[in-house]
């Protein structure tokens, strides 16, 4: 098949993998809102002008209308501005703008995970080709950090679990170049990177036999977290998450339940 035809097939495959469930639009500012605000402001100005004129005339009675106009006109203008959009709000509900809210992430590597609202796939910490380790075929990282925050945290990373990696879920795919079982693979890679393995035990992932390694940080005795390893033909999947050592803050929007939930939602593409 010509490469042009293969490209068409590839793009067609990618294009048809998702469909829109909903498009959420915020409330659109009512065009009359500005008019109302202007009218309110004009009313205040007009009343104030009258008051000034009356004041210049030296009338004792001027003080009372001025005070009344100020305290009633401002709330009135504000009220008009805030209530006007609600007349149109019934058509489309307003939602917080989160691009990945409740979405299912479908990876070209051949799996899906559910991403809770606020979580996204990291572009900075994901790649679909090997880099330093030729056996690491792909790795995708999921985070709540903004790209800018993530980039800043990556600059702080050292050789251990860096700040950008705390409270992230990762799905990595390895070439099983040593033809190991998942248990042998898990036993071999369980140390290093400032992590202490607490247990290595059999489990299942999406109905397949797997091995679960539970870790804690070497520097403290905080919450534990885990990675599961699944043998898939001549490949090994590593699906896991990190929490934070006690000296690092939890990223905004990240929770243990959220990051663990991503790992637990892992499914192989059917």
């Amino acid at each position, binding site marked *: 098949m010509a490469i042009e035809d293969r*490209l068409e097939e590839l793009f067609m495959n990618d294009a048809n993998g998702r469909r829109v469930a909903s498009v959420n639009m915020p409330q659109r500012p009512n065009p009359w809102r500005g008019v109302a605000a202007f009218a309110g402001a004009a009313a205040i100005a007009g009343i104030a002008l009258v008051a000034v004129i009356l004041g210049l005339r030296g009338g004792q009675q001027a003080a009372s209308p001025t005070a009344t106009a100020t305290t009633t006109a401002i709330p009135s203008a504000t009220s008009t501005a805030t209530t006007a959009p609600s007349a149109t709000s019934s058509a489309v509900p307003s939602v917080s703008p989160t691009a990945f809210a409740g979405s299912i992430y479908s990876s070209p590597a051949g799996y899906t995970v559910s991403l809770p609202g606020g979580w996204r796939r990291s572009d900075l910490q994901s790649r679909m080709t090997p880099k330093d380790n030729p056996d690491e075929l792909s790795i995708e990282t999921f985070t709540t950090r903004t790209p800018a925050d993530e980039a800043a945290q990556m600059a702080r990373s050292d050789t251990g679990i860096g700040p950008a990696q705390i409270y992230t879920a990762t799905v990595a795919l390895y070439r099983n170049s040593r033809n190991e079982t998942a248990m042998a693979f898990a036993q071999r890679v369980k140390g290093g990177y400032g992590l202490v393995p607490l247990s290595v035990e059999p489990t299942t992932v999406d109905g397949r036999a797997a091995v679960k390694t539970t870790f804690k940080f070497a520097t403290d005795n905080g919450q534990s977290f885990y990675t599961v390893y699944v043998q898939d033909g001549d490949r090994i999947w590593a699906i896991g998450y990190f929490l934070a050592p006690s000296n690092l803050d939890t990223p905004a929007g990240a929770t243990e339940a959220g990051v663990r939930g991503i790992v637990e939602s892992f499914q192989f593409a059917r």
Partner: protein
Amino acid sequence: MATAPQADERSIVLAAQDGDVDALAALLRSLGERLLPLASALCGGTGEADALLGDTLSRVYERIGDLREPDAITSWSRRVMVRKYIDQRRWFQRRPKISINTVEVPTPLGTSPEQLDLRNAVGKLDRRDRALLVLHYWQRVPIAECARELDIPEGTAKSRLNAALRRLRRELEDSHGN
């Protein structure tokens, strides 16, 4: 695939430009359904497509009043999407006003070694080159129109397309050789 607007879409665009919230919501929904396949093809079938589509629709939402020719809504929004895809850093750092929820549709995701090799090779291309390939080989957009959408001369679009194909062939030969 993005297609030409239907006969009554012109009236929907005009109503949206006049401030009709229901028309705007319907227009965004319709554009979302038509543009998600393009976003998915550009982003390699990844969830990034949601963010790209959300930011594209946010732009439509913000600038619908500036569109002079309602019949051009599809091509205009497609051009917005392609340019946002190329300028990834800018769109990914923005917080879109429009949020998209998508669901996965079971499809053969292409896990044969040949498809994975091609996917990896395409993944190494410059975003502008990938957009060119998607527009020309999948959406069948003529090269002159591709050039306009990418804001480059037609001759440059042709040479980039040929160079991208040569690079893909070389990458595939290398992967087969290993």
